[in-house]
């Protein structure tokens, strides 16, 4: 992740705030990360950690009256998306950066045939004719494994099951062979067997087309199986970032450790499941100091007073903690 050249995506100090009745909510408060070509990055966090807002900020889909991107840079292939005019950003969306959403039930327009929804993208971005776009749509449906794609292409979304709809979303996203695919909790709304299929689908398609993937999830199991690097978010900040194997083997942050401990271990005979005590903070009213301090079992007075530093543990492993080195040393 420290490769200075050839990074497909470089996010620098992204801040997205929302003006609400409760005050200014700093949903994303100074996030930085990089993504290399062909790589899969996982973004892990609890609800409210800011992971979805990060994604939407990357392609500037934040609803603008309450929210705004306050500062930061999003360098996509060297060009800062945040400084482009809206028309240029629209050319990137769908064409070079594609996004799939969490709930396939509601992500498709219920009044439009699947074929039309697929065709719109290629007609818009690639300038295909209606006939070409239709053929392309059928081909994409076949690629994602829709049975009988040609006769099903003219069906409506409600005629597909949940897993099928998610496949359709993936087909839509990959229609123009984007350089980056952002998958926002793509399997959360699906049952477990379908989850495995969808993830495998994403993985195989990614290998075949060389697309880079940002995978957002709260499921550590998914992260372990799919990603090259991981960032762990909490209260709008990056708490830890590391290559996946390293993060699981040697976490450097108490929060990450807590998350890993929370994953139920089927071989564990003890009765109770571990959970990190307390609740995620109200991002509108963050305490000074480390946002995780109220819940951290490692916390000391300095954690409550001072905001922790972003400590570099190895060349690719960083942790936001006053005691990062110590935590790192003591994890196995």
């Amino acid at each position, binding site marked *: 992740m420290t490769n200075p050249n050839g990074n497909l995506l470089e996010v620098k100090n992204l801040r997205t705030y929302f003006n609400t009745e409760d005050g200014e909510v700093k949903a994303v408060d100074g996030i930085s990360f990089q993504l290399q070509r062909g790589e899969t990055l996982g973004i892990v966090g609890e609800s409210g950690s800011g992971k979805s807002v990060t994604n939407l900020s990357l392609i500037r889909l934040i609803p603008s009256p309450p929210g705004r991107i306050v500062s930061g840079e999003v360098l996509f292939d060297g060009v800062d998306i945040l400084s482009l005019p809206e028309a240029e950003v629209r050319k990137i969306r769908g064409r070079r950066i594609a996004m799939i*959403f969490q709930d396939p039930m509601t992500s*498709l327009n219920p009044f439009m045939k699947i074929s039309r929804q697929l065709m719109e993208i290629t007609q818009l971005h690639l300038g295909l004719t209606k006939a070409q776009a239709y053929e392309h749509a059928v*081909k994409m449906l*076949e*690629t994602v494994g829709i*049975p009988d794609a040609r006769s099903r292409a003219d069906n409506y979304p*409600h005629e597909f099951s949940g897993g099928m709809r998610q496949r359709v979303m993936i087909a839509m996203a990959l229609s123009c062979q984007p350089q980056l695919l952002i998958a926002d909790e793509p399997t959360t709304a699906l049952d477990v067997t379908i989850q495995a*299929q969808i993830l495998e689908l994403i993985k195989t398609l990614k*290998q075949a087309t060389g697309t880079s993937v940002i995978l957002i999830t709260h499921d550590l199991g998914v992260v372990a199986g799919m990603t090259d690097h991981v960032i762990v978010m909490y209260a709008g900040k990056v708490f830890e970032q590391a290559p996946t194997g390293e993060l699981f083997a040697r976490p450097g942050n108490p929060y990450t450790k807590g998350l890993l401990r929370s994953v139920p271990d089927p071989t564990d005979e003890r009765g109770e499941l571990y959970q990190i005590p307390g609740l995620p903070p109200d991002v509108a009213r963050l305490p000074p100091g480390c946002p995780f301090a109220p819940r951290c079992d490692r916390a000391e007075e300095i954690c409550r007073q001072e905001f922790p530093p972003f400590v570099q543990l190895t060349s690719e492993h960083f942790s936001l903690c006053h005691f990062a080195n110590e935590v790192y040393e003591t994890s196995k």
Partner: protein
Amino acid sequence: MNDDRPTIPGDQDQPEPGLTPDPAPSYRAGDVIHTAPEFAIADADVLAAERGDVIAGTSLWRDAWRRLLKNKLAVFGMIVVLIITVASVAGPSVIKRINGLTPDYIPTEVAALRSLPPLTAPDGSFSWLHPMGTDNQGRDLLARVLQGGQISLLVGVIATLVSLLIGVSYGAVAGYLGGRIDNLMMRFVDVLYSLPYIIVVIVLLALFRSQTGRGQVILLFIALGSVSWLTMARIVRGQVLSLKNEEFVLAARATGVSTPRIIFRHIVPNTLGPVIVYATLTIPTIMLTEAFLSFLGFGVQPPLASWGSLATDGIQNLGIFPWQLVFPGVTMALTLFSLNFLGDGLRDALDPQMRKV
């Protein structure tokens, strides 16, 4: 898609039996995914419809149509409207061909043919020539009623279309853009709403009086259409407000679709249910307004006739020659009822599934 995809050995085989119910394999060798049988489409995830058990898919419109047909009153309304429309459109030409009478034909032997009762000849004997009698100038009433139908229906439909066009665009834009623009636009609507619209229409018509009959009718379209778009705008705005936060709108924006396209291609089609219902109910309202205007003398001018103007003429001789009012009046009332029944039926047929989103 690039074609130098890696093929994974072993996928050249047939899919494992029992996993895909289809007789023919649904994926073929060389395809990138689903090459390992354990990742083939799980039986559990395939709906009966996807398996091919159901032959035809149903769209939401077809369901609505089926539901509409079950509503007897609505079907009655639909049929009556259809009959009257066809009769109005084709009637005058048919009558002309049969007995050479046109709606504005004033016969030369004027005195004898004035105000004939229905089915009567000038000498008092039975005659098929004038099934509805004649008016006080000797014109065949049936032909006039049918032509009246043409004009009334035309005014109703086209003025509704005008109000539809203005109302839907206005409401959709206001609803989607939201914020201050929406506020401004809807306050403007509120102001217009408070004006007594009959007076506005009368003023418009008085200012722009047209010389030709046809010109007057076109003026009516515009005048009536431009005061009746307000409720349509409100309805559409409400729908758009609730739809614009749906995830499919976000998904569409994420594929780079521009705002006007989102509004008119993605959101507005989803609002068609209430729009259709309201449009069907606007037509009779406009027809009644036009009748009232004719009563005041601002509607169609002779020799053109609308049901309203015919009724107005008929009132003058109500005691003596009642048929001159009864026929146009009953026909108009029948049409209005039928349109209302149809509108109610459409509302019942379309409403539940609009909520299914």
